[in-house]
């Protein structure tokens, strides 16, 4: 709220002083507001509807709009994301839009406005001149938007670049918050400098009557100082998903990569080089088929040594992006240190096995939970043996419903229903559906597995 009261006065003060620079920004802003929107949509869960507002940027003349990935938690199916509406700044009129999907590499969600005639007034962010790579200390300005009750009134933020970093994308960090995540940032000449991303937390010490300097991390829910630079960002606009599932999602089946720190590198005679320790390989995955093993240390991709990025963990993100930039079926050659030998492996990448957002699921209202099909991700969580994988897991529990009361928890793996072993997801759903529709049924018994131990749960129906 502090921001809200401070900003109008700031803009006003600049205007009164007739500062040439401020007038410049005001003129530039009027044009650039045609590129920013507020997107409203509904997340439909088993028992409720949640309204969400997120800011977004217009990326082309067909009315395509981009939203940062963190605005929508993973795990929702595309069908659960409903009623997309787009508002311009300073208006309460909205236009409907459809959800296009999430890009696996960047995490950006894409939506598109439905009515072409309404798009005329919008200007894509590609329409503005592109800033050269900004310099340290350069002043930038960005945009924030107020809530629905204020007709999404826009406001201006400005700050200087405090730091430039590869995380692993080229990113500028400004001294103060520069804009709402998802909205563009410009330089004083009005050139497009980049897109604001979700904020990093900031460390503070909390003093109060009974707390003395307790460290806390604060996250600004409305604005951020993290800017993805334009030259890195613009190619991402080509990645409009071909389907709402965001397929293909290129996959190697390699898990738990850990960076090798400089001390370890020195001891392994890898001085000055970057390495990633492989913790786990999914059986049957491209990495397993290529012969990679846990404890291998990845040094290079296609003969190109892994870059030296700081902090060390950023290299893990770099490696993940290198996989996602490629297509399923493409080859990726990894140079690996195994023991004291360097070896090379050709990995033929594949499309990732079914993800949570694609998984079959069904909500049983009377039983009080959602059963979801067992996925590769679940086999990792449950450390399941290859021969026993499959069936159904608990995805959602109705609070205080029969299943929750009996002690069932999310991610529990259903092994038996009424003493009969579960052979597949469909088998589980058939049995549960029969139970749900049988009004005379007073109780049933589940055998579930959690953390390698099983539980017998007696679920009483009203």
């Amino acid at each position, binding site marked *: 709220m502090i921001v809200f009261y401070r900003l109008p006065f700031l803009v006003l003060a600049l205007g009164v002083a007739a500062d040439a620079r401020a007038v410049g920004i005001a003129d530039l802003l009027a044009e650039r507001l045609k590129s920013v929107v507020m997107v409203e949509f509904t997340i439909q869960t088993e028992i409720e509807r949640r309204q969400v507002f997120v800011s977004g940027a217009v990326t082309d003349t067909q009315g395509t709009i981009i939203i940062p990935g963190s605005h929508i938690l993973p795990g929702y199916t595309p069908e659960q994301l409903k009623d997309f509406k787009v508002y311009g700044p300073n208006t309460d009129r909205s236009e409907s839009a459809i959800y296009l999907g999430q890009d696996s590499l960047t995490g950006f969600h894409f939506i598109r406005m439905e009515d072409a005639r309404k798009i005329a007034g919008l200007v894509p962010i590609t329409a503005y001149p592109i800033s050269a790579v900004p310099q340290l200390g350069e002043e930038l300005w960005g945009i924030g938007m107020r809530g629905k009750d204020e007709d999404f009134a826009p406001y201006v933020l400005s700050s200087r670049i405090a730091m430039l970093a590869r995380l692993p994308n080229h990113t500028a960090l400004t001294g103060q918050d520069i804009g709402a995540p998802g909205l563009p940032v410009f330089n004083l000449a009005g050139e497009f400098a980049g897109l604001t991303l979700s904020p990093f937390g900031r460390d503070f010490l909390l003093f109060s009557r009974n707390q003395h300097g307790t460290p806390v991390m604060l996250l600004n829910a409305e604005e951020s100082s993290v800017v993805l630079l334009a030259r890195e960002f613009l190619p991402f606009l080509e990645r409009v998903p071909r389907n709402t599932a965001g397929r293909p999602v290129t996959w190697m089946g390699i898990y738990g990569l850990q960076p090798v720190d400089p001390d370890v590198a020195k001891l392994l005679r890898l001085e000055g080089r970057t390495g990633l320790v492989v913790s786990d390989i999914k059986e049957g995955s491209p990495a397993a088929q290529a012969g990679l093993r846990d404890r291998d240390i990845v040094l290079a991709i296609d003969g190109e040594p892994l870059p030296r990025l700081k902090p060390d963990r950023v290299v893990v993100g770099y490696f993940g992006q290198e996989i996602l930039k490629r297509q399923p079926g493409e080859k990726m050659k990894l140079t690996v240190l195994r023991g004291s030998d360097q070896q090379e492996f050709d990995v033929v990448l594949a499309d990732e096995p079914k993800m949570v957002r694609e998984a079959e699921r069904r909500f049983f209202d009377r039983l009080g939970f959602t059963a979801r099909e067992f996925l590769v991700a679940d086999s990792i969580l449950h450390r399941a043996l290859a021969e026993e994988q499959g069936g159904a897991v608990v995805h959602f529990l109705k609070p205080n419903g029969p299943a929750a009361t009996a002690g069932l928890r999310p991610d529990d793996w259903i092994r038996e229903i009424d003493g009969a072993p579960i052979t597949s997801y469909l088998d589980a759903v058939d049995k549960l559906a029969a139970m749900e529709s049988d009004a005379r049924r007073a109780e049933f018994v589940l055998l579930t597995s959690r953390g390698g131990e*099983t539980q017998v749960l007696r679920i009483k129906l009203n």
Partner: protein
Amino acid sequence: MRPSILLRAIVGIVCLVAVQPAGAAVSRGFSQLLDAVVRIDVREMTFDEGTQRFERGIGSGVIIEKDGLILTNAHVVSPRAVEISVTLSSLERVSASLVGWDHWTDLAVLRLNLDEIKSRKLTFAHAEFGDSEDIYPGQTVYAVGTPHGLTRTVTRGIISNHQRYFEDSRAVRGYETGSFNTWLQTDAAINPGNSGGPLVTENGKVIGINSRSYMGADNLGFAIPSGVARRVAETLVREGRITRSYLGLRPRSLQDLERFYELAVNTGLLVESVDLSSPAAKAGLRPGDIVLSLNGAKLDGRFPEQLPPIQNIIASLPIGSEVGLEVKRGTQTVQLRAETEKLESRVGEEWAFEKWGLSVRMVSRAYARENQLPDASGALVIGVQQGYPAAQSGVARGDIISKMGGETIDDLGRLKKLYTNYEANPEAVLVEAQRNRRIALHVFKP
């Protein structure tokens, strides 16, 4: 002085005139009991912060034999104790040694230093056991101890329940307890400080060893029944330890599930879970099975308090003995044979390597199973000291050190040998540590 554990107590000698059991004159038995209650001061070694430290604790105990045997709680005196000092009712202090401990029943047995007693011409009384099988809810009982440091405190109450089920996987200083016995529950006030002291009848017979209470509740105290305490004490004196058998089945009370499993009431033991690669798993036992009989003896696990005695039947079998299980599975009845293994705690051996600033606890089979680790090797980091090589390298509490200098860490001896080498010749050593199945490499630098 730091009374570090919840229910450690100073139990002193109780002023006789202060005690008027049930309004009557003090019985001879009761006054003899009061002379047998001691205070126990313990200095023990801890390995928590990447270094070996000494910690002090205080508890209570009761002398149970002419030859100076003392019964107390396992959470008062453990094998970590390096100095045990006992204050007799005469206020004289005498040293004592640990005879043995058993965290499963939260009991430990000490022996007074009789040479010291003799040379200083000291005397002491010993208490007599009552029969914990004979007691009944509503019976008047007394707890003797030093709650919150208030010595010579006798509290009075009744037996609230004589078969309380209470099982916890880490209640006795991280060790498991309560799987093989039920507890006496009393409303005689038991507070932090009463631990190890006796719960007695009006005539001074020991029917329980006070052990725990619900903090914040009103007078919900628990004691180990004297029947259990006697048997455990006898074995500890004879063998120095209690060895138990393990099958790897986790029971659950059937309560209301008889109809589902089509059982007559008071029949069978429901198997809730079977430990991976345990004797029960190898025998083919499955979760959801009903064990009808064990070596021909019928089982009845209908209510929770019936489970510890059944678990105790299994635990009391000799290690490596064949167990015949009659199991109902669906509509079938199958006969299974399992061979028992030695029961292990989840808590492995602990040590501190001071120059690394690293405290470890070896991964036990039980810990590996509990955490779904592929095998029972490695050293769990239980503490690091800031500024020392382990902490500097990024190793943190909760990591499992699986390899060091190319060697697999499968026992504490190997780690100690590597440490000795490091002490003699401090040079950088490569360490592989795992956390949540992530493998990370670190370097301990001198």
